[in-house]
């Protein structure tokens, strides 16, 4: 690098750089135009709109922080936030545990492994609409199969599931876990199979029990995957919506009313785009905060 670059070479290098820039952008442009217009611009616009009282007719006045102060006083917002947290607190660990369990079960030489994998993955590729229809009927309080099974095994007052405000959220959590565990199972399987076999063999030579092998080989080696799954699951949980929209529509009462439902209702039912955007910003900030927080924790553990 210490040699003096002759002008001809430099010019050639500049030309190459220029050519690379042009061809790089040519490749990226078709996607970038759509991506910028439909994702980047809306994200920036969101912040502006959240400070206005934009409505369906497009009349927008600058409101300053009014939407946000209104948000803090809004009882519905607190309910939505609380329900979203409630959903996340149960759905996240449950899905994590079940999908890891499934992955561990399926990560071995057994017959029909393909069948079991398909069975676990199938709910994930089924549309929420079909899922909601089936589970709503399965959950019907009087004649639904689930409550019939429950009373058959001796439960006296089986829960009224989606028509009761206490049990609607647990019902949603069950269905959501059932639907998503196959997806995370695949991520865990990929992580498990990246663990070098030699580590297990070494542990066995050292006389480690299967629990010891799990604790001292599987868990530490799987940490990057677990981290990724946790980040994904938190974001997925906080933005939970379409399942709720089709299964309970936020009800009964406000028992399954979550943040995304509030954005949807304010924007597309009540046409209050400005206020809906303020709710959106809060969702955005929460997801960002979770991701950053998890990255920080992860870095600290790694050190």
């Amino acid at each position: 690098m210490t040699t003096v670059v002759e002008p001809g070479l430099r010019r050639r290098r500049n030309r190459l750089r220029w050519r690379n820039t042009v061809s790089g952008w040519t490749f990226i442009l078709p996607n970038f135009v759509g991506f910028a217009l439909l994702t980047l611009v809306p994200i920036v616009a969101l912040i502006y709109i959240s400070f206005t009282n934009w409505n369906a007719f497009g009349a927008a006045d600058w409101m300053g922080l009014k939407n946000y102060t209104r948000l803090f006083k809004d009882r519905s917002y607190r309910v939505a936030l609380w329900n979203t947290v409630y959903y996340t607190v149960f759905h996240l660990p449950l899905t994590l545990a079940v999908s890891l369990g499934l992955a561990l079960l399926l990560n071995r030489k057994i017959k029909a492994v393909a069948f079991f994998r398909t069975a676990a993955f199938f709910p994930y590729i089924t549309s929420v609409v079909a899922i909601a229809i089936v589970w709503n009927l399965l959950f019907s309080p009087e004649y639904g199969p689930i409550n019939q099974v429950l009373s058959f095994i001796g439960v006296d007052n089986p829960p009224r599931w989606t028509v009761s405000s206490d049990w609607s959220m647990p019902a949603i959590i069950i269905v959501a876990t059932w639907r998503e565990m196959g997806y995370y199972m695949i991520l865990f399987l990929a992580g498990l199979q990246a663990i070098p076999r030699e580590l297990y063999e070494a542990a066995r030579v050292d006389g480690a029990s299967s629990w010891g092998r799990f604790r001292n080989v599987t868990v530490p080696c799987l940490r990057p995957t677990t981290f990724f799954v946790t980040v994904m699951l938190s974001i997925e949980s906080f933005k939970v919506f379409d399942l709720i929209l089709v299964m309970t529509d936020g009800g009964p009462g406000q028992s399954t009313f979550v943040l995304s439902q509030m954005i949807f209702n304010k924007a597309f039912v009540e046409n209050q785009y400005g206020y809906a955007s303020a709710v959106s910003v809060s969702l955005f900030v929460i997801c960002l905060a979770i991701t950053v927080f998890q990255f920080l924790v992860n870095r600290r553990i790694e050190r």
Partner: protein
Amino acid sequence: MSPRLAPERVPTAGVSARPRSAVRRRISKVTLYGTLIVASAFLLLPFFWLLMSSLKKDNDVFTVPIRWIPEIFEWHNYVDIWVNADMGIWLKNTMILSIVVTLLQVFTGSFAAYGFSRIRFPGRNALFLGYVATIAVPWQAYMVPQFIMLSKVGLTNTLWSMIALQAFGAFGVFLMKQFYETVPEELSEAARVDGLSEFGIYRRIMLPLSVPAIASLALLTFVKTWNDYLGPRIYLRDRDLFTIQLGLKTFTADPQHASQFALVMTGSVLSVVPIAIIFMAGQRYFVEGIATSGMKG
């Protein structure tokens, strides 16, 4: 690297030659299969019930005690649904959308991924970071400004809005880039020396090599578009534009049909069948696509 989910590479549990462990191994094997069978029953029972109910009479869907298998198979449900609902229109719209969106996503995604992974230019990494960062932003957070923008240009209530919404996702770029990184740089270098243009390298070398990745992306995109409910719910008003998900949901919510449980189930089965077929045919690619997108965060 793209991980293969092949069972051969899996560490087997408890393989040792001691005779004492033979019995134990047998017991653990039985427990394992027992657990798996119970788990998959729990996973698949809703589908079984859906399929069987779609062949019942409306009044027989809920019976005490539960009857899993209908007495008489009401095959005509599968004819009635086409008359009672706009099944044909819904399927046609959904098919058009899924195909167009998939083509656009695969084309623009793989093209951009090539630019990101093979061509060095200033600002490239920052730009890619922007792409990745938006994957963590939930769509629900920016669906409102997006809707305002698309309605300003008059695209709401058209199928175009659905195409615009779904065809340019960052996910496709990310997935394809992950794959391209596994292709040795020397291949493109050699081609460059031989005088092939960047586009030539993309077309002649990368594209043929990335068929499995493209299959993954295409299948995932197709299924996602097919199953999307929220987008159509927000954007599409005309009944002629309804997709299968929106149509089915509207049909169920209509008081006129709400008690036609069997017919509702028939419609649900029909909405799932195409996806089931695609999934069975390309399962390997689904699994690899998801596993790849999960690697390296």
